[in-house]
């Protein structure tokens, strides 16, 4: 049967135009600016400048390392939390899940500042430790939620079958539950790694500007340096775009975006 709604496909055209003009074209502009100088001539000097500055390269490596450590901490803390919630240790797991998501509705800058004040109150120094704590604090819900979702959708008869066939509880976990939750783990890793590797404002607040992350480096080239640094900043942004692209290939993005909407 012919779909009577078929002619309605034209309704997506405004959005297609919108996406091309405001998403695709701007991303292409990053590439164009990265490979040109201020006069619009083709050049590689923006990248040469970056790779010659060991300080800048180290910042990139350091930012990736910090993002990886944050992601691992979130996974180690978040997986058990999601597991405990999904395994119905509570009469109302929905409420528990909600409690973990609720802090995300508070402005993240304000939450970060409250964390800074907490460190002040406890007389703890700001720096790397505060940075890791603050980022874990900000992004932990992004790890718990997708894992919780996949665990919850799991077909429980598989566990039952494994038990019947003689698996002990440890084997059930390592051979059935853990492999089945891998999509959720991938989503969680992507959803934590991407914002942490690209973060720029909270690192300044959490380390009193002592530690510069790659995101702040990009931000500065568009701020303080004025127009002269834009091409350099675009080159750095392109590097960031490559990292993000590589990460999203690693994770199953359909799953990740699906988890974000739920």
């Amino acid at each position, binding site marked *: 049967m012919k779909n009577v709604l078929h002619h309605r496909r034209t309704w997506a*055209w405004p959005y297609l135009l919108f996406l091309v003009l405001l998403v695709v074209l701007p991303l292409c502009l990053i590439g164009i600016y990265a490979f040109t100088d201020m006069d619009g001539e083709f050049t590689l000097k923006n990248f040469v400048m970056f790779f010659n500055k060991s300080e800048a390269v180290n910042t990139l490596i350091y930012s990736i390392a910090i993002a990886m450590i944050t992601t691992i901490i979130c996974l180690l803390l978040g997986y058990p939390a999601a597991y405990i919630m999904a395994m119905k240790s509570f009469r109302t797991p929905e409420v528990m899940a909600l409690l973990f998501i609720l802090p995300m509705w508070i402005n*993240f800058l304000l939450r970060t500042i409250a964390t800074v004040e907490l460190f002040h109150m406890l007389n703890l120094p700001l720096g790397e430790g505060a940075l890791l704590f603050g980022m874990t604090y900000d992004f932990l819900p992004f790890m718990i939620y997708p894992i919780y979702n996949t665990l919850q959708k799991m077909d*429980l008869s598989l566990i039952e079958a494994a038990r019947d066939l003689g698996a002990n509880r440890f084997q059930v976990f390592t051979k059935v539950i853990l492999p089945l939750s891998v999509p959720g783990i991938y989503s969680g890793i992507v959803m934590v790694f991407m914002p942490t590797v690209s973060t720029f404002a909270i690192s300044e607040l959490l380390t009193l500007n002592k530690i510069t992350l790659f995101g702040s480096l990009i931000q500065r080239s568009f701020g303080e340096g004025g127009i002269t640094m834009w091409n350099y900043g675009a080159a750095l942004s392109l590097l960031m*775009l490559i990292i993000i692209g590589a990460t999203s290939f690693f994770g199953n993005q359909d799953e990740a975006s699906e988890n974000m909407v739920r």
Partner: protein
Amino acid sequence: MGKKQLLSEKRSFLERALGRGYLYLLLFVLYVPIVLIIIFSFTQSKVLGNWTGFTFSLYQNLFTGYDLNANVRVDPNLYRAIGYTGLIAVAAAAISTFLGTLAAIGIYNMNARHRKGMMFLNSIPMINPDILTGISLFLLFVFLGISRGLATVLIAHVVFCTPYVVLSVMPRLTQMNPNIYEAALDLGATPMQALRKVLLPELRPGMISGFILSLTLSIDDFGVTFFTKGSGGLETLSTFIYADARKGGLTPELRPLFSLIFLTILVLLIITNVRAYRQKNKLNQ
């Protein structure tokens, strides 16, 4: 065997207690900074963590715009920031909901290949971190010679909100029975009437959740706003807080403001969840 028994069998009391304890500990740490903000909204001191006695004066200052104790006005930029945050959030959410719903209907009716392509394009703004969305739009506005301000911030917010509307409306379309729409046409409804009376009511829940999601995304955004607001003095709450924190010392009236926002959201979430829970129970009966 029930779901519950299966998973909780052979689970000792100690094990369950440990599990619960772990979750409560995580929640405790997660909520300490928030509780801190709420507690210190009831005292007057400039800095958080310095308790100078219980008082509602910060709430009073927030609502009157005047600090009676220090005899100064509360920073007027705060109110402007609140106004702009609300204006941008509502406008961006409304535009995104319209554009996204239209797009979802269109994409749903495409063939599989085109649909896949559109969904890929749709996912780019969601994958892109805010710094890249911000910078790419910044370069676009510079390239086109558009001066940055309210309009550019609004456009930027529509860019990162609309994909979520598309994703919230899409499942409603795929779950809908297409015969209902056809039946309406067969029974003499014009396409416009069928759209209004059949299609839109089906899509409404998706549109509402897309709208709410857009509101929260817009209110919470910092990165994209930061790069698209220009230097004309336009601030949203996020950029206001950032500028404030960098100056050192946060405007104390932010504490009661965020306590109120948090409580509002808490109440709204409880209401919507209780409602969803009741509906689920009704369906199960």
